[in-house]
């Protein structure tokens, strides 16, 4: 079996963004999803620092120092885009105005608890940024993360070990192995990569998994095509 790479995970998450959705992408892998929205589908991206209608990375020579994204990387504005101040940018996040918040995570629990803001490293100050706001407000909260940590230990847990960002908020998890929904009856696997068995996936996941009646293969392009700006 071949686990998905970062771009492939982002591609898969991008396929679930619908025409007309307002979407906030967290820093890290979620940011990549903007490049993989299917051509011809209009999805409007929001950035916490006051951008609605955020575009792709600027072309060489077209960089604008006044245009940055949540990760402080240079970005662009699409036609129809607009700016708002921070209180309104977070009103959109907190007030349920976004359709989708796509976030990175350290851990997710079987109830959809999310831990993605601190690993409590005493040598460094913690930082929360917009993580707690993004985890409570959007109509749908989805996570992209590696299925296991660097030592191969599960990151989908019965209870999160790291401090929580928000409880019972995550609806769908995209990993490098599977697409899993958080349901009132627990975790439901919708898609799984080829060459992986149900037992194999269960062995890398702490809580009990259930498998959808129509379990599908998790199929992504070998090299996802980046959508043109």
């Amino acid at each position, binding site marked *: 079996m071949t686990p998905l790479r970062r771009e492939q995970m982002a591609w898969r998450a991008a396929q679930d963004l619908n025409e007309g959705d307002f979407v906030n992408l967290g820093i890290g892998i979620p940011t990549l999803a903007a490049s993989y929205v299917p051509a011809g589908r209009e999805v409007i991206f929001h*950035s*916490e*620092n*006051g*951008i609605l209608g955020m575009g792709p990375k600027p072309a060489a020579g077209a960089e*604008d*120092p*006044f*245009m*940055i994204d949540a990760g*402080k990387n240079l970005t662009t*504005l699409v036609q129809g885009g607009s*700016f*708002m*101040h*921070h*209180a309104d*940018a*977070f*009103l959109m*996040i*907190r007030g349920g105005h976004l359709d989708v918040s796509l976030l990175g995570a350290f851990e997710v629990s079987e109830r959809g608890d999310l831990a993605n803001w601190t690993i409590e490293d005493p*040598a*460094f*100050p*913690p*930082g*929360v*940024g*917009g*993580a*707690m*706001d993004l985890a*409570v*407000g959007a109509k749908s909260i989805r996570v992209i993360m590696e299925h296991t940590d660097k030592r191969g230990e599960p990151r989908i847990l019965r209870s999160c070990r790291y*401090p*929580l*960002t*928000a*409880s019972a908020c995550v609806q769908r998890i995209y990993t490098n192995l599977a697409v899993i929904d958080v349901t009132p009856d627990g975790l439901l696997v919708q898609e799984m990569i080829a060459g992986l068995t149900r037992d194999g996936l269960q062995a890398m996941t702490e809580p009990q998994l259930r498998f959808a009646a129509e379990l599908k293969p998790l199929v992504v392009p070998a090299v996802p095509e980046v959508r043109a700006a």
Partner: protein
Amino acid sequence: MVYGCGTSRGQAELIDKQMRTTAEAVAGVRDGATVLVAGFGAVGVADQLLEALHEQGARELTIVANNAGNGDHGLARLIHSGRVRKVICSYPRSGDYSAFLKAYRAQALELELLPQGTISERLRCHAAGLGGFFSPVSAGTKLAKGKETREIDGRLHVFERPLKGDVALIKADKADRWGNLTYRKSARNFNPVMAMAADLTVVEVEEMVELGALDPEAVVTPCIFVDRMVVVGAKA
């Protein structure tokens, strides 16, 4: 604290909030003041006013910002020089935050970490004359420790108090002599909400324009919130 808005030039009866220097613009900031430092990363930060505040010498400052300084200038310089007693921010680990990290490890300053949207809404709340609000953000987490909670419509909320600045340091693009402001793209960020939330709002602008030259439909910060302005950069 009471601050004057400085001398007007020309006809004495006309409102003119423009200062000649950044030093005049930050004059009177007291030791122990709470300073709202707008910006997100390095964008939309009033670096020239922060440099002037360093020269001015105020100590024991509480800084409210999204990040905790970058490189060796502006807010980072204030921290490096030991002028900052406390930082209230959402994300100190941004850019080159070595000045903050050194002070944090030496326990030379206090960090109060808040969710980003809680900072902006607490500021707005003070500006709006409200006594606080209940927010679902951070409910049930470490950051809500010690805060009053209430269940509203079946969901746990945390009580957040208003947050006020003695001084706000604002970066704008254009201004007129009344203090109406416009911003540049994502450099708007915290600027308008911080401009509303302090006793003394000081603005560094790229360009002063004639009264009436700004499109009234495009003014982002109306002049009622602005006390002092100074032009920096190429058009100073």
